[in-house]
């Protein structure tokens, strides 16, 4: 009864649900497009209609994949909302700012998901929120405070986020090219995801979450450390807490924003952890963009699919490396044999996070 089992996982991206998105990624499909947005030349990975940015509609779509969560509607379930900005539209519309409080957003999710009897918690570790929420969930479950933890998150493209990242000169006008020497910046994306984690006895075929960790670079408000030590520390701690060693890891889902400092930092972190025996590594942001706080939830959902298939997709936009270390960024689908993968994410404030997904064989 000591395994933390990923009972249900679902997501929506502009490429579809988790299965559709995984198929598309492995087939080399990207939804990233250059475009004009409110007079700004940017690249975005957007939903094809405004209706899909409606939170109730998004939740309904998510539930088509996860099924009803009503069976979890009890005080034995903790609902964690993992978010950076979520739905910032009330601030954009100059409505009552209280409507934009994350605690207000969590109430909407709770109501829409039919989880009114659950306690809630809002975790907001910037773009590392999803993995930080899983890390938190593991503690609540390991202390037997709850039987189930449901983690959900959403981030939507908005004037607020596009203008903000554009003002930081961070958005590529052509599309993110993670780890590529011709990178020109990041691409914003949008989507939502749900994870349901329970403590129990895992059986063959179950995906478990045996390890996770967060750390801080203590280096810069918005930029990553230059040496990758903080992310390496998070990955090492996650691997150790899963009672694994680096050679047990078959693949790494990188943060991979396609900014020069991030890419170099991640290469150093991966080399620190895995040395000469690098697993295949992938960034999804050249295909589905950067989903901010919801990113690491959605990418965890997708990584569970990669693990089931023992295949990671190629990194869209990656052709030629200029990285400081010889890591193995995939430029086409890569198979692996091990039963565990690392999912990593980083965020403003020097926040690093990593988790381990493992399939019971």
């Amino acid at each position, binding site marked *: 009864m000591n395994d933390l089992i990923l009972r249900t996982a679902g997501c929506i991206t502009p490429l579809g649900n988790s299965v559709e998105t995984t198929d598309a990624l492995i087939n080399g499909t990207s939804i990233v497009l250059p475009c004009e947005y409110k007079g700004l030349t940017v690249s975005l990975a957007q939903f094809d209609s405004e209706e899909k940015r409606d939170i109730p509609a998004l939740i309904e779509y998510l539930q088509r994949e996860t099924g009803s969560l009503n069976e979890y509607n009890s*005080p*034995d379930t903790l609902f964690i909302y993992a*978010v*950076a*900005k979520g739905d*910032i539209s009330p*601030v*954009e519309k*100059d409505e009552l*700012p*209280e409507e*934009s*409080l*994350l*605690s207000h957003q*969590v109430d909407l999710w709770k109501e829409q998901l039919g989880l009114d009897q659950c*306690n*809630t*918690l*809002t*975790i*907001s*570790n*910037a773009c590392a929120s999803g993995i*930080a929420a899983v*890390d*938190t969930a593991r*503690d*609540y479950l390991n*202390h*037997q*405070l709850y039987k189930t933890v449901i983690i959900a998150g959403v981030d939507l493209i908005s*004037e*607020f986020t596009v*203008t*903000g*990242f*554009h*003002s*930081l000169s961070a958005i590529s006008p052509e599309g993110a090219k993670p780890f590529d020497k011709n990178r020109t910046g990041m691409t914003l994306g949008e989507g939502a995801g749900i994870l349901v984690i329970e403590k129990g006895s895992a059986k063959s075929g179950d995906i478990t979450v045996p390890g996770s*960790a*967060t*750390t*801080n*670079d*203590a*280096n*810069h*408000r*918005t930029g990553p450390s230059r040496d990758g030590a*903080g992310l390496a*520390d998070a990955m090492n*701690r996650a691997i150790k807490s899963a009672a694994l060693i680096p050679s047990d890891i078959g693949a790494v889902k990188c943060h991979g924003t396609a900014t020069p400092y991030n890419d170099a930092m991640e290469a150093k972190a991966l080399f620190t952890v895995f040395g000469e025996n690098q697993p295949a590594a992938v960034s999804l942001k050249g295909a589905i963009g950067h989903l901010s706080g919801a990113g690491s939830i959605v990418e965890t959902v997708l990584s569970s699919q990669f693990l089931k298939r023992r295949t990671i997709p190629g990194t869209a936009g990656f052709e030629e490396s200029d990285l400081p270390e010889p890591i193995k960024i995939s430029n086409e689908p890569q198979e692996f044999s091990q039963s565990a993968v690392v999912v990593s994410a980083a*965020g*403003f*404030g*020097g*926040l690093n996070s990593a988790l381990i997904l493992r399939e019971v064989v």
Partner: protein
Amino acid sequence: MISREKFISQTKCCDHPGESLFDIPREEVYPEPYRPFGKMGDHEKLLFSTVSLALLNCSLPESTAIVLVTPEGSLRTDVAFMNSVRDNFPRPALFAATLPSAPISELSIPFKLKGANRIIADNNESDGFLNALFLLEKEETDAVVLAYLAPNNGEGYAVAVIIEKVEDGIASITFDITDNSEDKTDTVFRNAVAALRGRNNFSIPVIKGTINLKVNAK
């Protein structure tokens, strides 16, 4: 085993009613010249000052974790940034602070705190305390800075609690979590916050006690 705690409040919040809450001279809270101090936003300055006071005469290891409870998150910065967008002069420095986690770097960088971080963006201060204890149980964490930040339209306050792990810890905070009532977790942090809310003139109370964590399975 957790055996020592310090409750330390930020002294300047309510010392001079009517003065700007955030008009805090750096030299009163941090001994060294620190250039970023003058550029900090309200949230960051209040939090930095509070934690600086909490850390007076206290040196923490690099592995120290931070748990921040921030019910309002970055709402006021969000509104300020959106106003700059409407004025056609979006301010990148403001945008970088439009995250509930933004104040974390104002603690991690000057105090060199590289441990785990959890940012709770709602009013669950008792869960903040619980998460601090979760982290302290981990092998790699020897201390946690637990901070509660409530700017509340310039009338607010911040509270910082430093919890350290020591080898000869002996006593306990008991968490009664055998049911699911609202006060099922701890009352210590909640009571500390409530007590501070009711006071007009903060001193720097340091409550040293011996505590131990008892978590009952359901």
